[in-house]
Structure formats: C-alpha cells, structure tokens
C-alpha cells in the first residue's frame, strides 16, 4: 500500500518536473561530444579534452566514463547515448573507447545514423570495432612489439620482462604484441620473461596491482641483473614500474601508452606547473633533468607526444573536419596530415584492414 503511495508521488513529481523544465536545446551550430576518463584513470586524455575546449569554446560537450568501467558498462553506454540525445551533437569522440563503446555506437546509430564516431585507444576487438566506428586512432601495437624490443636492446638490455594478466592477454592486439615481442627477443638474443601480475580490475583493485609491481621489480632485478627491460601492459602499473626501475637501475624502454606524462611525473615527484601543461617538449626536458640527477640517464625512454592527449585533441580535430565535410575519414593521407599537424611530429600511419578506418600510428622515441 505504502509502496504504491511512494510510486504515485514519484510519478506525480516526475510529471510535474517534466511540465516545468522541458529543455530546449536551441544551438545555432553543431557540437562535438567528447567522452574521456577522469584524471584518476589516465590524465592525458582528460587534459586533451580540456585543451580542445579551450581551443574551440562552445563546441565541445565533455563527459567522463566511469573509473570502474569494466563493471559499469551500462553507465558508459548511458553517457554516450546521453550525448547523442542532444540533437546538436553531430560527432562523438570516445577516448579511450572502453568496452561498451560498440554497444553504445550501435544504440546511437539506431536513431541517429548521422553521428560520426571517433574511437581513441579502442579496447574492444578491433575487427568488430572497425565495423562501427567511423575512425579509430591507436598506437601501432604490432609495430611496437618490434620497436620496443629493439630500443631496449639499444639501451643495453639483455633480458626483457613483460608484465600483464589474463584479461589484457584476451585483447587481441596486446596478445599479438606479446608474441611479436617474444619473437623479436629471440631474434635479437634477449631473454623474454613473462610475469603475471594481479589484474587492477580484480578484487584487490589498483592498489594490489601497484604493490605487486613495487615488490616484484626488485625481486626480478636481483634474479636477472640490472640490464633488464621492464614493460607492463597496464596504465596503473607505470608509475610504480618506473619508480622501482629508478631504485633498482633497470630499464624502461616505453610505457603501455607512450607519453612523457604517463607515470614519469608521479614516479619522479615532478610537479607539472601551469606553464608546463600541454607543453610536451618542456615536460620531457624536465623529466630528462630529473632522471639525470638520479644517475639513471639513458635507462628510460618514451614518445615525445602523449598518445592519450593526441587521441582526444586529434580526434576532435578529425571529428570537426568530418562534420564540416572537409575531410574523408577513409582517406589515410588526409587523416595522417591532420594528426601530424595536431602533434607537430612526423608519424607513420597504418590501416588495420580495408573493412574500416582503424588507424595505427608510430612515433620515434626519445631517450631520457
């Protein structure tokens, strides 16, 4: 009886609210929806969205996907479909395109087939995603399988340690990259070691995964010597990995998502001041100084651009041009030029297959 009463009052209120605050989105031009993680997941992609908002005031509608995205897929879908509910939104950039993105794209395209989707760093199966997203941007993981090992060797590594866990190894590209790394190691005479770390999305969460890295790196270095290159497939593990490598003298040739801001500032205790924000050459310079101070020069490397940042900013750029019909997203040359202009670095672009616009890129590394 009482529940019925509550039900009744809720309905009455809902109708009342509906009558009073019908929302009219009367925007003269179009908008671009941007979905990124919060700064606790991967700061770069979020800062990229902020930069895009500064560059194009009024154009961007920015929302975030859940921190706990593996468990809260429904929220991800709701956030994306929520953007599409705004009639003025003509394109949506999802970076990172976490699980649920394909489902959301499908739901949106049911009623809004006109919306253009750009996916940054897709997590879902590439052959599936490329059928639905209008374009995807991701670092070329297959090519990195070779380039990271080659760089590690150049930096003096004799062994190569790969940290990951079953969930990541079910990602096609990550599994493939691991296999390529193993082959490349065999070719270059490096010993390949695979270590399973706790999944940060598992019961122990991120703290358990980070603690494991902090404890395991000294163990591995004691066992295999200092000339071991460390690599982990997970974002949350980069900071402890770099910190532990600094302490033990090991080598870190590249992070999972190459970027000067990924893991380095935290591990080095480097403060990103106002004038450094978004200025990647300056940040790289500061990191270089800090590492040299700690006597570890030549043992650490990364890309000069932040992939998370560039996926958002270049994604917005591509989306804007595509909505204005100034670019064909299937034109790899034009896309490459746009992204290169956005980052200020030469890049190598590759397409996954002819079934879609799944673009994979590579940038030359800098050694600190």
């Amino acid at each position: 009886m009482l529940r019925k009463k509550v039900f009744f009052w809720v309905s009455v209120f809902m109708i009342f609210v509906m009558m009073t605050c019908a929302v009219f989105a009367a925007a003269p031009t179009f908008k671009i929806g941007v979905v990124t993680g919060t700064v606790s997941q991967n700061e770069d992609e979020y800062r990229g969205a902020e930069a895009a908002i500064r560059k194009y005031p009024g154009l961007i509608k920015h929302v975030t996907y859940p921190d706990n995205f593996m468990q809260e897929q429904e929220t991800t879908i709701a956030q994306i479909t929520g953007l599409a509910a705004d009639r003025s939104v003509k394109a949506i950039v999802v970076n990172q395109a976490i699980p649920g993105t394909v489902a959301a794209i499908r739901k949106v395209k049911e009623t809004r087939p006109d919306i253009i989707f750009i996916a940054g760093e897709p997590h879902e199966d590439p052959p599936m995603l490329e059928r639905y997203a209008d374009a995807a941007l991701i670092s070329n993981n297959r090519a990195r399988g070779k380039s990271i090992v080659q760089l590690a060797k150049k930096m003096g590594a004799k062994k190569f340690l790969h940290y990951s866990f079953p969930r990541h190894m079910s990602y096609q590209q990550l599994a493939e990259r691991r296999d390529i790394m193993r082959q490349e190691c065999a070719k270059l005479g490096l010993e390949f070691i695979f270590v399973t770390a706790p999944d940060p999305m598992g019961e122990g969460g991120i703290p358990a995964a980070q603690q494991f890295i902090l404890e395991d790196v000294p163990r591995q270095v004691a066992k295999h010597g200092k000339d071991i290159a460390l690599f982990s497939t997970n974002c949350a593990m980069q900071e402890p990995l770099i910190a532990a490598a600094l302490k033990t003298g090991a080598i870190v040739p590249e992070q999972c998502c190459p970027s000067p801001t990924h893991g380095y500032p935290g591990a080095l205790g480097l403060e990103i001041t106002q004038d450094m924000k978004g200025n990647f050459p300056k940040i790289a310079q500061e990191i270089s100084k800090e590492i040299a101070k700690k006597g570890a020069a030549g043992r650490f490397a990364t890309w000069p651009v932040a992939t998370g940042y560039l996926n958002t900013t270049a994604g917005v750029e591509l989306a804007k041009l595509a909505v204005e019909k100034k670019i064909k997203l299937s034109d790899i040359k034009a896309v490459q030029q746009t992204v290169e202009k956005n980052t200020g670095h030469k890049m190598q672009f590759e397409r996954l297959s002819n079934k879609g616009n799944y673009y994979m890129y590579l940038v030359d590394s800098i050694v600190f």
Partner: protein
Amino acid sequence: MKRGGVEVRSFGYFLQLRTGVFSRSMVPAFFAVLCIIGVVVAKLDLNYLINEIFTRLGRNTFLVLSLLIPVVAGLGLNFGIVIGAMAGQIALVIVTHYRIEGLTGLAVAMLIALPLAVLFGWLTGLVLNKAKGREMVTGMILGFFANGLYQLIFLVLVGTVIPMNNPTLLLPSGIGIRNTVDLIGVANALDRALDGIWDGLIMFDLGPIPVGPWRIPLGTWLVTGLLCGGISFLMKTRLGQQMRAVGEDGHIASVAGIPVNRIRITAIVYSTVLAAWGQLIFLQNIGTLNTYNSHEQIGMFSIAALLVGGASTRKAGIGNAILGVFLFHTLFVVSPLAGQAVFGIPQIGEYFRVFLAYGVIAVALVLHAWQNRLPAKG
C-alpha cells in the same frame, strides 16, 4: 532509557515515532527525493531519461527478480547470481559459435544454460549449506572463485582441450576467446520479439512538447511480467510455503519435518537458473558480450537495486525489485549529469555519481540495520 530522571529516546525510536509505519518505505522515499533533485538540477532531457529507464527496466528487472527466492528461503542476498550469469554467457558463446540467431538463438541459449545453471546452483547450494549464517559473503567469494575458473576455461582451455575453430570468436593464436563477442545474432531478439504486433515505439507531440522517442522493450517486459506471476505462484505452492518456513526459522522448519538443506539448495538452483536467463536478457539488450567481465557487473548492481527498492536481507518482494530498478537506475542516469551541472567540471560528475551511488547503497544498508533493530527496541 532513563538518564537523570529525563527519558532519553534513541534516535531510532524517535525516527519510528515520527515516521510511524512509513519507515518501511524510508529507503525508497529517500532515493526518490534524490532522483527528483537530480533531475531538476541536471535539467535533464526527460525524453532521454524516460527512454533510458524503459530500457533499463527491461534489461535489469529479470536479474533483480532472480534474487527474491533465496531471500524468502532465508539465504539473504544471493551474490552467487554471478555464477548463474556465467552459465548464461557460456550458452551465448556456444550459440554464437553455431550461428543460431534471433529468438531461436536466444531460446536455444536458455535451454543450454538451464542444465549448466542447475549444476552450478546445486554446487553453490552445497557450499552455502556448509556456511549457514554467512551465505552472503560466502556467495561473493564463490563468485570470485568461479570467475577464476571461468577465465581458465575461456582463456586457456578453449582451443587447446576444448576443440574450437572459429576465427571470429577465438584470439588470433587460436587459443582463448576474444575479449568482446559481437552478439548481433541475438541482439534485441527478445526486446523486439513482439514487433509484429507493435514495435513499442512511442513518439508524438503533445502540443508544443515533444514526447518520445521512447521504445518499450515489449517482449522483455512481457517475459519479466510472466516471471513475476511465476514467482507469486511459486510462493503459494507447497514448495513456496516450505521455503518461507525455512526462511523464518530453520530449526523449527526442520522439527516440522521440512528437509531444510534440500529446500535451501532448491532456492539457490532456482535463483541461479533465473540469473542465467536474466543475464541472457541483459546481454541481448546490450548487444555485445564482454567475455571476461559482463558477469561481474550484475551481482552488486542487482543487489543494490533490490535494497534501494526497500527490500532487506530477510524480506523482499516483486514490488521492491521493480521499484528498486526504477529508482536505482534513474539515479545512475541522473547523478553524473547532476554532478556536472552543479560543479561545472565533467569529471566531478563521475566522482559525484560514484559517491552518490555507492554512498546510498551504504545508506540503504544502514537504514535496514536500523529498521531491523526498531521492533526489538520498540
């Protein structure tokens, strides 16, 4: 309580006096107020909200209903529904592998999931009988354990021990299932099952106010309705009465000659089977299977929804389930946007949502603990 001659009432007692019989609806009422505030603050497009809630009522209610039977049988909230969900997913992978599509595909998946879920439920029941009084935490840990087994099977055994040759499902190495499986074959199969009669689309203009587009997942609503009827019927049968008796007091029930352990296992088996089917309904609506994580999403959120609907670990009804899904998911849709609208920073929306969603689950639990104490004190 007398202190210095002045009678001091506990806060709980005060609350009881003030709210009287209304206290049973305290949790849902609290949530309803939060939802309404959220809707007003977020200036939400109500057509979007209503459509989203229609979808989620279809997507989630069946799963939440699967929790009811163990509550009646005194097993508390069955965190073990995660295991049932795994059975559903195994069936879906098989159906996708053999390319059985549409409503037939879904029906076959339900049939395949049935024996698996019965087996899993039976095993869960056996374990829970050994852990009387701690069923909830045991069920939760069992879920983690089963997750490990599930990963082992799908990542390592498929392609090695279990022969399978399907490049669209397997990783390029030929071992292990991909992390996402496209369920395009069964996507919306049940939601749109009644399209022949009416496709469930509501869209018209009420004077200047546009209404819709809302899409009612008619088939799913119908099946969920049937389940509600089924559960009510079950509770009236002899088995239902026995479950109730076991739930009230296991000792008295066993003295009365009711096979307590068997009844408890039966309750868990029912719940696990319903969870497997519920997961199938959930996934046919989402349209993609997140092979290694889809099941993890359901336990906690189904339970939270039921609690929000005013149920407790000892008492839960169909009304609680439906009201709970309605309120919990409204809050989930509204809170990130409300947070963003209030603070003006997108990521605060996410933090606000997490704070609110998990905070209120905690509040719901605390309020229940309170209510449980009230009769004892009063």
